[in-house]
């Protein structure tokens, strides 16, 4: 494995073009995931099941959008593109978030199932990023990982409680899990540049590593919640590798189109405005 961390720099001149492209692609995956998940979380404000959840989801949203902004700034430093424009001016086909995250919130139980699955994935991906040969990514991960554990704990607590509660809570959670599970595979995808990302140690975990570490984390929580593990329904190998509908390569659902329309409305009203 080549080592870049002897060059603790955001200076794009020291990176080959192929490495820089792979790095920008990964940073946009990280940024878009957090921005889209953050935006969906913000939509619960005022309509969450109780006041504490209004606050919790707003707080989670604020954290996630902040993390997205940090990753967009890293892209800005590398590629010279404006961070706000990266967040607000890119069309759906340019977005690299996993499809699971753009889905409408729908039921609270679906939100919890998705939130738990994503926050566990974030934990696994950040652990890999902590070992990144690209110092700015390593430093960002160090900061973010300290905040994310609160999100994971929160989602996991809800996930277990809904499962253990039985009755309607459990049956709605089961539906939410089944629905989220269908969209899981591109969460573990690293997109077109997967090989070079791992080879260069920018994200030193293969897609299969990420999936296995995720499953090892999530499966015991399913057990605690008294829920059957749905993993076997697909088989491990179906979980990784590019498919025709990979969000990492810009294949998205109409839900993302609708989300972007709402999210960028103010930005589009006056692109030059300073907020």
């Amino acid at each position, binding site marked *: 494995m080549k080592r870049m961390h002897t060059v603790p720099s955001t200076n794009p001149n020291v990176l080959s073009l192929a490495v820089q492209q792979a790095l920008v692609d990964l940073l946009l995956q990280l940024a878009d995931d957090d921005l889209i998940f953050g935006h969906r979380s913000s939509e619960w404000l005022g309509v969450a099941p109780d006041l*504490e959840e209004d*606050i*919790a989801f*707003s*707080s*989670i949203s*604020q*954290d*996630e*959008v*902040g*993390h997205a*902004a*940090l990753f967009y700034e890293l892209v800005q430093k590398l590629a010279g593109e404006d961070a706000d424009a990266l967040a607000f001016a890119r069309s759906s086909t340019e977005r690299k978030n996993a499809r699971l995250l753009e889905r409408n919130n729908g039921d609270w139980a679906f939100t919890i199932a998705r939130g738990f699955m994503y926050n566990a994935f974030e934990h696994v991906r950040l652990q890999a990023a902590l070992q990144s040969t690209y110092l*700015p990514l390593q*430093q*960002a991960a*160090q*900061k*973010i990982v*300290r*905040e994310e*554990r*609160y999100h994971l*704990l*929160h989602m996991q607590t809800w996930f277990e409680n809904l499962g253990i509660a039985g009755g309607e809570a459990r049956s709605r959670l089961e539906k939410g899990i089944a629905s989220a599970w269908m969209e899981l595979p591109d969460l573990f995808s690293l997109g077109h540049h997967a090989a070079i990302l791992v080879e260069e140690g920018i994200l030193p975990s293969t897609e299969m590593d990420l999936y296995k570490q995720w499953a090892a984390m999530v499966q015991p929580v399913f057990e605690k919640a008294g829920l059957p593990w749905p993993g076997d329904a697909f088989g491990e190998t179906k979980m990784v590798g590019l498919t025709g509908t990979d969000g990492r390569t810009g294949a998205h659902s109409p839900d993302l189109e609708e989300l972007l329309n709402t999210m960028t409305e103010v930005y589009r009203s006056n692109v030059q405005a300073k907020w």
Partner: protein
Amino acid sequence: MTQNVYEQDLVSAVRAALQDVKDPEIPTLSLEELGMVYDLTVQDHHAKVQLIPTFVGCPAVEMIRRLVENNVGQVKGIESVQVEFVMDVPWSSDRITEEGRRKLAEFGISPPPHEFLPGQAPVCSYCGSSDTDVVSIFGPTACRAVYYCKQCSQPFEGMKYV
């Protein structure tokens, strides 16, 4: 470069001016007490203040930049100010000074624990009772959690460990 006496005086003056910059969300705490000041240099009447951002999504960060530019800019002998946020070390609640922790408690916010203990409530910041519960690990700002004191029969806030 050897720093002359005059510049050392300026550094002290800038440090004093920084002491007047408070966290917009906790107005009794200075940036230094919060552990946000990473480095401070003065050269040729130019002050460079390096700060460590607290929570990544903290909306107060840009406000803090302007406050620092403004306060330090008013120091006699300082002609320009540069505020830089650095990522060299991640901010941790452990960076809050003892004085900062005392002021937090005085403001009504329990100081953060020194480890990740999200299921444990601190002593009540109003009455000191340890008969307390966690209400929510998310509070009105990214850095705070909400607790309940059974002695006072009322909620109170605490700063989270990060």
